[in-house]
């Protein structure tokens, strides 16, 4: 009996370690977990990513994950190949198809967090090549520099400690210790719908008793929205309330110009920048004043093509965002799409 128990513990733990330490194991587990309506499945993102972080039961709304439905387009001319460098605001709302975009006959999407090996493939057809650089407000200062964009087109030089010791360290770490092992184990062991009630109870206990919100999440002052903590915390980078100096904005515009110049040298005809405001910038639920990052930037960009959906999103703002997710909903995404299409239509032939 004791031997059997030992064998059982060994097999369970070793199996868990093997699955959590391998990419294929985690892919298999993730796929299995996201089968709907199962107690052994995961409901982490079923109700919105911020619910998945916080487990605050008041925000347990099923999230509509369907893509925005494309409208009928005005232009019959299809003379643009669209290349998008963007984030989840883009890919979680739209299918990567040209049907959404005016004048677009083909589209390629590149995620900011893709590995540098993934490259754009230029189409040989002589169409207008347009690069759309999209990012959510909280990441703009981090992402907007020429080197970051150039890394997408060229093989970046990876600066690593080349000493023998450092190389041995890296090799051993790679072989024996998966870099996200702790997160993987946490996912494998506890990311089950079965445990959601316990997680909700803990979250409620901490909030009601200690006034402590779950790490990474902030409850709106109006209590009806969840935000990413980073976007509300006045001292965090990317916050809607962090002071951003005029000098920093001027530097950002210079960086955008450098990116534009670089892209044109790479063969693009036009570059469009679009920065999506943090939900808290638009919803105005807090008693702190917004740093006006995007509107101030818009005033400085001059001839750069810039799509700023802030004002439009502010119209009936609460209908444009999920309550328990860090993204806009289909309505918000559609507002942005309409603005982008106007911009595409206005580009020279």
């Amino acid at each position, binding site marked *: 009996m004791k031997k059997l128990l030992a064998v059982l513990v060994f097999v369970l733990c070793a199996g868990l370690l093997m699955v959590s330490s391998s990419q294929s194991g985690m892919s298999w587990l993730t796929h299995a977990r996201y089968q709907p309506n199962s107690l052994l499945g995961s409901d982490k993102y079923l109700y919105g990513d911020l619910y998945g972080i916080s487990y605050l039961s008041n925000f347990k709304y099923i999230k509509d994950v369907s893509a925005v439905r494309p409208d009928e387009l005005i232009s019959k001319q299809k003379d643009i190949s669209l290349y998008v460098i963007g984030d989840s605001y883009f890919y979680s709302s739209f299918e990567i198809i040209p049907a959404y975009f005016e004048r677009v006959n083909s589209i390629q999407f590149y995620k900011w967090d893709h590995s540098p090996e993934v490259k754009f493939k230029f189409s040989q057809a002589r169409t207008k090549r347009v690069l759309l650089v999209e990012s959510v407000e909280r990441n703009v200062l981090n992402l907007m520099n020429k080197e970051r964009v150039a890394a997408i087109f060229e093989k970046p030089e990876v600066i690593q400690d080349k000493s023998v010791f450092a190389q041995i360290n890296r090799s051993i770490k790679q072989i024996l210790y998966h870099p996200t092992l*702790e997160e993987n*184990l946490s996912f494998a062991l506890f990311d089950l719908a079965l445990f959601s009630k316990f997680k909700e*109870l803990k979250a409620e206990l901490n909030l009601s008793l*200690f006034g402590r919100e779950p790490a990474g999440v902030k409850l709106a002052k109006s209590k009806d929205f969840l935000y990413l903590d980073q976007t509300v915390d006045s001292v965090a980078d990317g916050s809607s309330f962090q002071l951003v100096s005029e000098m920093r904005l001027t530097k950002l515009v210079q960086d955008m110009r450098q990116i534009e110049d670089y892209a044109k040298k790479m063969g693009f005809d036009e570059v469009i920048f679009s920065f999506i405001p943090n939900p808290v910038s638009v919803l105005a639920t807090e008693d702190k004043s917004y740093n006006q990052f995007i509107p101030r930037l818009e005033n400085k960009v001059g001839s750069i093509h810039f799509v700023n959906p802030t004002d439009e999103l502010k119209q009936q703002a609460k209908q444009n965002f999920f309550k328990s997710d860090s993204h806009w909903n289909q309505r918000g995404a559609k507002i942005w799409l309409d603005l982008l299409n106007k911009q595409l239509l206005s580009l020279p032939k």
Partner: protein
Amino acid sequence: MVFNSLQFLVFFGIVTSAYFLLAHRFRWILLLAASCYFYMAFVPIYLVILLVTIIIDYWAGIYLEKFEGRAKKLFLACSLIANVGVLAIFKYYGFIANNVYHLAYLFGREVHLPSLSILLPIGLSFHTFQAMSYTIEVYRGNQKAERNFGIYSLYVMFYPQLVAGPIERPQNLLHQFYERHVWDSDRVRAGIMQMMEGLIKKVVIADRLAILVDSVYASVGTHSRGQLLLASFFYSFQIYCDFSGYSDIAIGAARVMGFKLMDNFNAPYTAKSIPDFWRRWHISLSTWFKDYVYFSLGGNRVSVPKWYFNIMLVFIVSGLWHGASWNFVIWGFLHGIFQLIGFTLNRFFPQLAAKYATGLIRGIFYRVLTFSLVSLAWVFFRLVHFSEIKAYFKQLIFDLPSNSLLGMNSNEVLFSILLVFGLYYWDFKGLALRNIRSQYFVFLLPFLVAIIYFFGVFSLKQFIYFQF
């Protein structure tokens, strides 16, 4: 790999189950491999440093047994120099270089020693002291030299106590690797309960107190006197729960497999004097210093000035053992001074306290006084820079207006205070989960898991003593 991580949970499950499945003769190999894996999870290459000192001490042990007289002393010296040398390079070189620079600067000269950009190997002070303990004991004839290189390596590297102790003695640990440990349900239960007790201390108490402590100590100059006192009070218990929690998990994990490690804490804040505190706090280190440094200097069998000097030296070295920084020296110095004041008062006024108080009041008075002195010294342990120490005491004395927050609401402060007093009562009564009756285990274990889950703070915060 920290004890309060899922990685450790899985690692522990694999190693412990494999340990009981394997034949006795292979178990040491499993433990050695597991210990290497555990250690390499931090910085793999530092295993080489450990290996070098292991080789030196292993051969030193064998030669110490073979030779007598001067040769024997020479081998001991070689071993100690190698161990202290590793410590000096990895832990103290930067400190020494910095102080040489400042000292030379005072005399109008600039001396720049070459800089070594090296990280401190985790747990270096712990396993180095354990290795030195081996060669000293072999030298003294209290321990036979270990001939099996693997077993000796395991003595230095045994994973439960590899990175933060308890610092074992060879007489206690080495022979246990040869003993056949069978599955004993009572012992396994006791070990698991001790691990749970350690986890509660770490994630429920220490890491919760750390929220307030970190918030206040991050900017001591902007907090009120009351806030500073509360943070210092909490820090005393944070460091206790953090370190004794680690020790409990280490001892419990070893106990599950049948190993008996020495106790490292014995209700230190119930101590009635500073010497009493040191008999209860980090016992494996304080006895190490007592056995190998204090007694070697002559202990108290010397003239009074020499005795006082010995005490001060031991405490200052003990401070330096914790970290290569002047604040740790001051911390050790303060404890030395407290000891000397205590001894002096006892010597010249033996009836002083008894004259003014009854037994109960005297007990409370001495406990509060001891705790206050220890907590005062902890301020120097926690604050590294002199500017911070200055700001702390300036604010403590003048209580200048401040409006900084504690990082906790009043409910959480109250809850934390309840935890602290609960722990104090638990210690005072000498309670221990490992002593719980076996029939309660099935009910108690899920209950403790629930306590840890619902009231724990899961930030994967490192154990404070890992840095030493």
